[in-house]
């Protein structure tokens, strides 16, 4: 029998979150595929609640690592808690949600354990008896099939939504408390506080219509027609990250994993390629209309309607059609 599959489950305030359930669902699926068992690990300060939630899932075991020094996330604390556990348990794969927290410490955990590291997996399948993972490359324009080679565990982080949380199989699992030797450990980071990233307070989440602009706009001076369109539609203007990073629009208008998550009735994506970090912020929209000059842009994979063309031609024409309609 191959080694076990572990799910290291992210929690917030002692409760499981969707990302955590997705990790368990993935571990259960992979254990079935490989004919082995799945174990969940949760760590933090005051996570007994998360532990008992996990106890109601079809798992071979639940390990709960409690320590007052695991209250606020630090790479040093998480490394010191997880490395000895994984070393002793020698699982074949350890699954995590691909979040800003795990991206921060997984490379170091892999390095310390001399484990493999496979970031941002979208799924797995067996090809000729061998496990292959899919992950996005080149901004999601292509998907790569990857296999792992060599000895020792592989740490895999799973892209959000890759394994639906509602696929978790219920069951009952024994819970084990695991002690972590964290006294005197260098946490590597003294957390001082958490604050909002944007200065303003534009709330995009209430908008019925959002016009999102991407790097394809080509410059701040070219925003005029898009702003006009926004007015004509009574919409809010939003932006992808490069537009904000370049200073063309303020941070408070950024949609995506680092910005706001929106679900308007209509999202117009203009010159946005559709990287996952943008999609997570708007894929819940009712209708998505994408205008992009590249027919293979990933945004078209989630769009309802697609226009392959230059936004600098389409937007003025749309403005004119809307004005005519209003006048007529």
């Amino acid at each position, binding site marked *: 029998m191959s080694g076990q599959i572990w799910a290291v489950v992210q929690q917030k305030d002692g409760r499981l979150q969707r990302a955590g359930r997705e990790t368990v669902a993935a571990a259960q699926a992979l254990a079935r595929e490989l004919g082995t068992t799945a174990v969940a690990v949760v760590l933090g300060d005051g996570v007994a609640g998360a532990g008992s939630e996990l106890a109601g899932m079809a798992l071979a075991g639940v390990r709960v690592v409690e320590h007052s020094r695991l209250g606020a996330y630090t790479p040093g604390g998480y490394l010191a808690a997880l490395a000895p556990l994984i070393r002793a348990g020698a699982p074949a794969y350890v699954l995590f949600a691909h979040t800003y927290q795990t991206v921060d410490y997984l*490379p170091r955990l892999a390095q*310390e354990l001399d*484990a493999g590291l496979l970031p941002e997996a979208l799924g797995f399948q067996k090809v000729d008896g061998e496990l292959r993972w899919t992950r996005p490359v080149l901004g999601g324009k292509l*998907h790569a*099939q990857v296999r792992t080679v060599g000895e020792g565990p592989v740490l895999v982080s799973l892209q959000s939504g890759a394994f639906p949380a509602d696929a978790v199989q219920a069951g009952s699992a024994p819970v084990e408390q695991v002690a972590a030797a964290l006294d005197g450990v260098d946490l590597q980071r003294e957390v*001082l506080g958490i604050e909002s990233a944007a200065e303003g307070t534009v709330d995009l989440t209430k908008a019925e219509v959002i016009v999102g602009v991407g790097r394809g706009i080509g410059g701040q001076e070219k925003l005029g027609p898009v702003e006009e369109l926004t007015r004509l539609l009574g919409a809010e203007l939003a932006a992808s990250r490069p537009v904000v990073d370049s200073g063309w629009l303020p941070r408070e208008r950024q949609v995506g994993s680092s910005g706001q998550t929106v679900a308007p009735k209509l999202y117009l994506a203009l010159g946005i390629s559709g990287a996952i970090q943008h999609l997570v912020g708007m894929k819940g929209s009712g209708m998505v209309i994408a205008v992009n000059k590249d027919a293979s842009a990933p945004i078209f994979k989630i769009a309802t309607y*697609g*226009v392959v063309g230059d936004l600098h031609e389409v937007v003025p024409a749309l403005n004119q*059609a809307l004005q005519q309609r209003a006048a007529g």
Partner: protein
Amino acid sequence: MKIAVCVKQVPDAEARLRIRGDGAWIEEEGVTFVLNETDTYAVEEALQIAERTGGEVIAFCLGPERAREAVRKVLALGAARAVFLSEPALLGGDALATGRALAAAIRAEGVDLVLTGSASTDLGFAATGSVIAGELGWPHAWLVVGVELAEDRKSVRVTREMESGMNESSRIALPAVLQVQGGINQPRYASLKGIMAAKRKEIRDVAAGDLGIDPSRLGRAGSRLETVSVALPVSGREVEWIEGDAAAVAAALVTKLEQEAKVLR
């Protein structure tokens, strides 16, 4: 302060991608390669810190020969010199193998701070900087959007991006590795003078054998990941294309907005 900045050369975001004959990667012929987006912010941050502290910036790059152009660009922007690792035995690695090699090259230089971009836009492991930190035994921070050097230069106050528009601030002891996120500054453009000066700046080529690492731990040989193939993503649902000239497209869109989305009054 002596600052290392690690850079990678990647396909331009606008590049039309074709899959290579063996299916395992893209056809590089005809593709424009550029400095990785977040690396441009890391370079700017490094230059600013060096200017404030009267130090120097050394660029480190691991990549094929074509990446020498990206190295020159960093020199043109103001780095004092560069270390280039282009030997085929060093290429094709995962983040662990690549980070291992870069860390060894950086260790040999003895620097106070290492900056990298937060992620490459091609492979996107977002891990190389943290691996470098692990190899050097230094602290690190990923997704840095603010750096404030303490007066005694023994630590930095770092602002890190979190999900959903929040930032975390923390204090990190130096030396450290900081993985810089886009938007932290406004990267400068290379001046003509800078471009001319770059031609005389040193690019030191470091070979795999110089690193003091078992060759089986480097490059493709040292990688735990192997790309079997790349393909266009398959999508669950099919987009409906709206075709025609701009006026026809606009008319069709107005109908959709009016009758389906019901967002026009």
